[in-house]
């Protein structure tokens, strides 16, 4: 276990935290991802019903992935830092 002074010195020398997605990009991403998810959901509702719903499932999974990232970006851009 390092001492407090060691950690203090280490903390002063290391580079600062950088997020994976830059902060200024989050509102733009939120808008584009959620808009795409919305459009894909609309497209999903127009798809014909088939016995093996391959097309429906692929559109649904793409829309959910976009919605997942879009919602996280949305929460962060309005100030709820999740």
């Amino acid at each position, binding site marked *: 276990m390092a001492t407090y002074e060691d950690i203090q010195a280490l903390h002063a020398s290391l580079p600062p935290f950088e997020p994976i997605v830059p902060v200024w990009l989050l509102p733009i991403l939120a808008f584009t991802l959620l808009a795409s998810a919305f459009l894909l959901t609309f497209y999903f509702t127009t798809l014909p019903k088939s016995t093996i719903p391959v097309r429906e499932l692929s559109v649904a999974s793409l829309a959910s992935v976009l919605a997942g*990232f879009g919602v996280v970006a949305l929460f962060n851009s309005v100030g709820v*830092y999740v």
Partner: protein
Amino acid sequence: MLARWHALLLLHLASWASLSLADPVRSFENTAIVRTVELGGSSTHVTTSYIVRSLEAGVPAYYFALSDEELSKTSWIEAKLKGGKDTLKVQRHSVHVDDRVALYSVTLPKPLAKNASTTILVNTIQTHASKPWPPMAKQSGKQSLLYETGLYVLSPYKSITQRTKFKLPTPVVHSFTTPSAPAKFTQGSEQSPVVQSGAAITYGPFQDIPPSAETMFVDEAQENISVHYQYDHPVLAVTSLKRSAEISHWGANLNIEDKIDLRNGGPALEGHFSRVLHQMQSSRNSVPASIVRNIQMYPPAGIRDPYFYDRIGNVSTSRFRPAISSLSKQSFLELRPRYPLVGGWNYSFTLGWDAPLGDSTTYDAKEDKYTVGVPFWTHIPNAVVDEAEVTIILPEGATDISIYPPFPPNSISRRTHTTYLDTTGRPSVTFVKYGLTEKHTGLIYVSYSVSTTAHMKKPIAVGAAAMGLFVVALIVRRINPKIHKGKKTA
């Protein structure tokens, strides 16, 4: 009777024996002790300088003592050699059997040679050492405080000369006690043992005081002295502080939220609070100094979006000035409570702000560890904290958590905190400490690792919920709720 005498003797011998194991009484001699008490409001600074002469060679530690009533008030102790920059290691010893005196050891950087001299400075901060006297005062009355302490500085070694000096905040002193019978230590000098000059009161010098860190001295020779002085600043106390620091890796943000219960520790208000009188005094700028109308705080630079609300709702009477980029390391926050805080009144509020995570957190690429530094509390001028609970909430899926508090807290506990978009919850560490002063604003360092899969838990969780909705939609599309009419005729 004999058994009791035996027990007493054994106990006394045991105390001497254990003391001799740790440090013989004859290893040091105090050439001079000067205690300076800077009288204040809720916190009092006491600096004791011990000029010591070593009677033996190679003794590694010097022992100093605090009486039990001093110990109950002391929140912070630091020891240094005069002229030295580094603080020396101070340790509490339970070697002494007596419970009226507490012994502390100071580890000297280099053991002294025989007959060598050095000066050790011991700084302590006492909280709530001065009490308002008289305990009640009118709305336009002045605030006076009373400080009581023992006349002699206790020490396990013999002292050749000793002095206590009180520094008053203003030259206005109502009264101070004149010691009744210090004759045995003043060597029959005609000069009064206590002298006031301007804003300083000096008790002493007292000569040839034997080793005093024991009950016999405290009971027989020790006297209590008190100083009754006027104090023209507010006496504030944060009776309870709950700080929560939440780290967000997606938003690169550190949110700090304080729930503060503030109390004015001045004389309690006598009679009703007259708003008319208060307005008149405000317009004439003659509101007594003990009434708190606003609180100024200096949070670190780079913070944004501060919020200030209480039980009723948002409090808009506040001012925030962000730090002027490179010039200062502090932002300015002025809060004005809903009502002026008169003596004896309380005000509870919640204060919070956001800060970019890069200002407080670093990343070690080699070890894949993040280290965050969160200040224990942000100092409110003229205030001390009675009980503080600081919780650091780490991101979801944080592992390998190591904590480095700036001073040993009273308790540390681990919990799981759940908030928006959480599935498994976030690990959180809680530190509890009693009696914080302006010297306790150091950073708590916590280091942790977050793997990329743990980081992706949030969008995957939301995506899974969305996928669930789509699957439900798939099923619902295929269910035909129509009631078939007359398809089969009987």
